[in-house]
């Protein structure tokens, strides 16, 4: 296998608050290959958005990002200087945010918001110095025949906005929600990045528009070979678009697998709970299945699996720190002690636990948090 495009190893992001440290992301590891759509799915508060921001080093105090490594094309981003990060952001890894209404600048034309990305990361021969930009913003505007502007118009066309020359001169509030999100995509593509991180790109949109936007993202992958990290809470979206998926809960990964494997052989009790709770068209249940209980507090998390208090299959090993176990298919990893070899399971009910199960886990932990080390 070639080197993965993006490699995250043991990412931990903590926020210091008055009440204690919030472990928003607590030891995440995953990889994204070139040209794949990788989904991160989880409920609100699971830490998925923070993960995205942490990779881009956009987390501000009082947040702290720590990891064994966050590698893009082999280079550890954590070692990068701010200048280097600025050239990576937008230029190599671009990000799309959830609410296009608030994520686009209301006092700048849509065209300029796209053009400036091209200008700053590409070779357009246009000055990007502070005073040139000030002049461009407040005095002269960006010339419609400048190369960066034309690139912006081109991109607006690519993402399917009709009448792009006209639209480029408009302001975000003059566009509909779907169009605004397309503008965000255009903005993200402007500098030919290799990865687009999309944080809940369709949550704020109508279902019909959602389908169009997702198609748009897939087109980007197909036409330009861009990898997409798609963050969402919607399993249906994952099913439609992602090649591989990671399920997050309370800042930790629960299960990682190729999409089909996840839906056909869901292994983690949490994943099962999620899948069961989706109402289906031919459902004749009277009551919706939900997972009882609430997400645990992220401050001073209790040891072990964060899901244990809500899990039907919880047993003695659950308060030991989680370790990654192989799942049912290729590339399938589950972080649940039910899958420890020394545990006997019938369905998902624990039938017997070997005495040395705890030892095995503790040994693994002593060798360093070996999350992500157990793939086939």
């Amino acid at each position, binding site marked *: 296998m070639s080197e993965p495009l993006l490699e995250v190893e043991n990412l931990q992001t903590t926020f210091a608050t008055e009440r204690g440290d919030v472990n*928003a992301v607590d030891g995440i590891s995953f990889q994204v290959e070139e040209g794949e759509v990788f989904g991160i799915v989880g409920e*609100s*508060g*699971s*830490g*998925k*958005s*923070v993960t995205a921001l942490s990779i881009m080093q956009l987390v501000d105090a009082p947040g702290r990002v720590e990891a064994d490594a966050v590698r893009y094309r082999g280079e550890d981003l954590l070692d990068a200087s701010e200048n280097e990060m600025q050239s990576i952001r937008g230029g190599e890894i671009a990000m799309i945010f959830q609410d296009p209404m608030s994520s686009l600048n209301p006092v700048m034309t849509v065209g300029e918001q796209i053009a400036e990305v091209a200008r700053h990361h590409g070779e357009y021969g246009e000055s990007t110095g502070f005073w040139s930009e000030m002049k461009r913003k407040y005095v002269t505007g960006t010339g419609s025949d400048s190369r960066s502007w034309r690139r912006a118009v081109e991109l607006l066309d690519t993402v399917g906005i009709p009448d792009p020359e006209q639209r480029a001169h408009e302001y975000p509030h003059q566009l509909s929600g779907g169009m605004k999100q397309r503008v965000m995509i255009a903005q993200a593509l402007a500098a030919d990045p290799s990865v687009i991180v999309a944080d809940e790109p369709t949550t704020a949109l109508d279902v019909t528009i959602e389908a169009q936007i997702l198609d748009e993202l897939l087109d980007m992958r197909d036409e330009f070979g861009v990898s997409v990290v798609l963050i969402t809470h919607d399993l249906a979206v994952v099913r439609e678009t992602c090649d591989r998926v990671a399920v997050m809960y309370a800042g930790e990964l629960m299960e990682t697998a190729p999409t089909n494997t996840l839906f056909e052989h869901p292994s983690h009790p949490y994943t099962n709970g999620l899948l069961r709770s989706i109402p289906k068209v031919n459902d004749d249940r009277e009551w919706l299945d939900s997972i009882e209980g609430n997400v645990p507090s*992220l401050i001073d998390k209790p040891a072990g699996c964060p899901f244990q208090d809500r899990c039907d299959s919880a047993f003695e090993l659950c308060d030991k720190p989680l370790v990654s176990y192989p799942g049912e298919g290729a590339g399938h990893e589950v972080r649940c002690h039910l899958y420890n070899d020394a545990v006997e399971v019938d369905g998902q009910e624990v039938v017997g636990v070997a005495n040395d199960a705890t030892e095995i886990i503790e040994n693994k932990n002593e060798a360093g948090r070996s999350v992500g080390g157990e793939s086939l």
Partner: protein
Amino acid sequence: MSTTDRLLNAVDLSGRRVFGIRTDLVERFARVLGRDLRAQIGFTIVVLFLLAAIFAPEFAPYDPMAQEYGILQSPSLSSGHPFGTDSFGRDMLSRLMFGARISLAVGLGAVTFGAAVGIVVGMVAGYYGGWIDDLLMRTIDVMWAFPWLLIAIMLVAIFGQGFWNVLFAVGFAYIDDFARLARGEVLAIREEEFTMAAKSIGLVDREIIFEEVFPNTVAPLIVQFTVFSARAILAESTLSFLGLGVKPTTPTWGALLGQGRGFITQAWWISIIPGIAIMITVLGINLFGDALRDAFDVKEADDT
């Protein structure tokens, strides 16, 4: 936990009414005091000045009008006049304390007047909408953002000087802002579910406005009140300084300042010290208001 927090947790007052005032608002108020340094400083200052004003007759060392002819004293502790005297030999400290009564009374009274009229107008306009809204707001609009001083001067010129006239003249300028604020709040709340719920169980309009709508809009109004109190005190001092305030012989802070104008080089304290008093009072109110504004400003918690 601060002491205030402990006390408040011991006595759970949420949702109850004592003498018709919702106790959870009082509780919030006390919490702000307990936590925010600005609130503490501001509140202390204001209370001190209020006490000085209220108990001036008891504590002022001299009769503010008593003249010792021709003796112009500079401030000194030994002479018994810590803030000196004016050109008629009247003790400045006593005059300041008595001045506080009027300056504070006019200031706070003016805002109360403006608030009372403005809030009622705004709530009615917002609640009923339609032509009532148009009529009321247009009337108020003409005066909007107009220089308050012009209006106040004209009012005083027409109706004469005197405590109540000045109070209304100053307060007039605040009617508009309170009306807008109240109207905006009502418009926002009117559409909220609990108003519809209240209507559906048959509460009468007036009851809805005062029992349901008003308590929820109180917070910004309180903040506005403090902001304007500061301005009103400054406004009264400006009018008095110009000779258009409460009767010229009365020692309000602004008037004292005005009296000292002719003696700036010889007796700087006559003008400077009342100004300091005004400044400290207004500063206290501003600090307190700022703390209140921060406390009532509920920002949503970040979503991870």
